[in-house]
């Protein structure tokens, strides 16, 4: 197996192994904070920062950490950067902090983080590890944004706080309530499943022609 280039490492998380739509990881923030596009992006960027920073540190320390205590070490490192993000968001905007609520602290329990640290950062040098983590984070952000913008448009008639349909818009209340998260996530998963289905069909047809 050839070593993937740095660029491939970066692209991996954005499309081919998108954390939300392909790996279906990190569902807790995905369903909980995506009521608006701004919330989604903030949550995504916070996670991206934690992901990239902790993968960098894990990758640097990877040879120093004995196997038996690696999970404990990773969690301590991840928790550190979650705390950093927690303070940073409080300093930037309290409104945002209230909106994201407990889910900032819950980044620490996001499966993507431990998964990346264990499966990638612990086995790769700092540069590809960080790039991969960064790509994963951006993929996560894009996924959240896709869900968040649909929910904001239908649930409030706005996108990034800008009114799209004027004052008489009828909000779909359910979209900003928890069930809305499930509906929109499911709808996107159907869209991506359909894409994959079409791709597979096309590839098999091409293969048939070639052989």
């Amino acid at each position, binding site marked *: 197996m050839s070593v993937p280039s740095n660029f491939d490492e970066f692209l991996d998380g954005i499309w081919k192994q998108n954390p939300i739509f392909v790996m279906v990881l990190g569902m807790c923030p995905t369903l909980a904070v995506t009521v608006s596009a701004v919330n989604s992006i903030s949550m995504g960027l916070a996670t991206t920062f934690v992901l990239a920073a902790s993968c960098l540190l894990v990758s640097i320390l990877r040879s120093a950490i004995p196997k038996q205590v690696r999970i404990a070490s990773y969690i301590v490192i991840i928790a550190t950067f979650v705390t950093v993000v927690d303070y940073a968001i409080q300093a930037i905007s309290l409104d945002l902090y209230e909106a994201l609520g407990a889910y900032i602290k819950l980044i620490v329990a996001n499966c993507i983080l431990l998964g990346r640290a264990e499966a990638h950062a612990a086995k790769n040098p700092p540069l590809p590890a960080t790039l991969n983590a960064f790509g994963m984070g951006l993929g996560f952000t894009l996924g959240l944004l896709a869900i968040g913008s649909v929910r904001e448009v239908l649930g409030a008639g706005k996108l990034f706080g800008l009114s799209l*349909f004027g004052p*008489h*818009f*009828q909000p*779909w*209340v*359910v*979209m900003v*309530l928890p*069930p809305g998260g499930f509906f929109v996530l499911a709808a996107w998963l159907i869209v991506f499943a359909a894409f994959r289905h079409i791709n597979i069909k096309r590839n098999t047809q091409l293969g048939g022609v070639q052989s």
Partner: protein
Amino acid sequence: MTQPIELRAAPHQHSGRDVPTIMRNVVYSMLPICVFSIWQYGLSSAALIFVVTLSCLAAERINNHFSGSVNTLSDWSAAITGIILALTLPPAFPLWMGAVAGFSAIWLGKSIFGGLGQNPFNPALIGRAFVQAAFPTAISTWAPAFAPHRFSEFIPSSLAAPFMSPPDIVLWAKQQGVDAFTGATPLARWKFENISASSMDLLTGNVTASAGETSAILILLCGLYLAFRKFLDWRIPVAVLGSVVLVAWVFHFAQPARYPTPTFVLLSGGLMLGAWFMATDMATSPVTPRGIWLYGALIGILTVVIRYFGGLTEGVMYAILIANAAAPLLDQFSQPRVFGNERDKS
């Protein structure tokens, strides 16, 4: 030459009835209710029934196209879902929201589970539950019945532009000269003001309610027709209505000042429509005799409990949905003893 013997597993006899026949008869039985609803609420009601049914059919057709399956419009089930759904919505419901309800009924309620017969919940009620959660204000805005100009003009909220909120209809009700229109259903008036409507009004449909749930006696007759022709299991409505009367009577007996009479509970709201046309959906109700009795009783008890103690004024919809969810379990608990075997003790 002797013919080869054909080997087949049971069942060996077909009653001669297929799904389209049953479904078509259900549609016929609902036509009087639709006609009465149109007579009561005029153009708005007609348009609502038309739009909701059409959107259900469209959703089914689109689904056929993408899943590559055969055309399932001809089994009439989507049409039934549409008509039942329209009858449970308030007559002044904006038409575009009706279309949303229709699409979500078919897609969320039926298609994603694999189509007719695979759905665990009644699709029409899924559609209604979706719009109830999405548009809580519009679905509790009621229009006055027998407005004088109901055949020449729409209730203004019906024609709200897609994605826009409907205008207030109180002003329109005043212009129509409808006196003392409170915009509250009999159940809401009982819950918040402790006023019970008269049984005569409830029987004949002279009340504020959803498009097709006003006249208890008409629904009863239509339901009886279906039961008589054996298109629905008579035990379900009997169990539902019986348990409602029993529970309501216990409450009324204990505290007559606080709880309404069993007659009021029986005739008001969507109970009749739910008991005869929604609880009896074959795909979502149990099949064993004891399971059916339990299922009906569960619906009845839940309905009364939600009406008396819940935040909502009407409980039939959620009662039926919860009982739908419990149906497979009830089936499992109530398996009849196979002839010659001991009763399964597990």
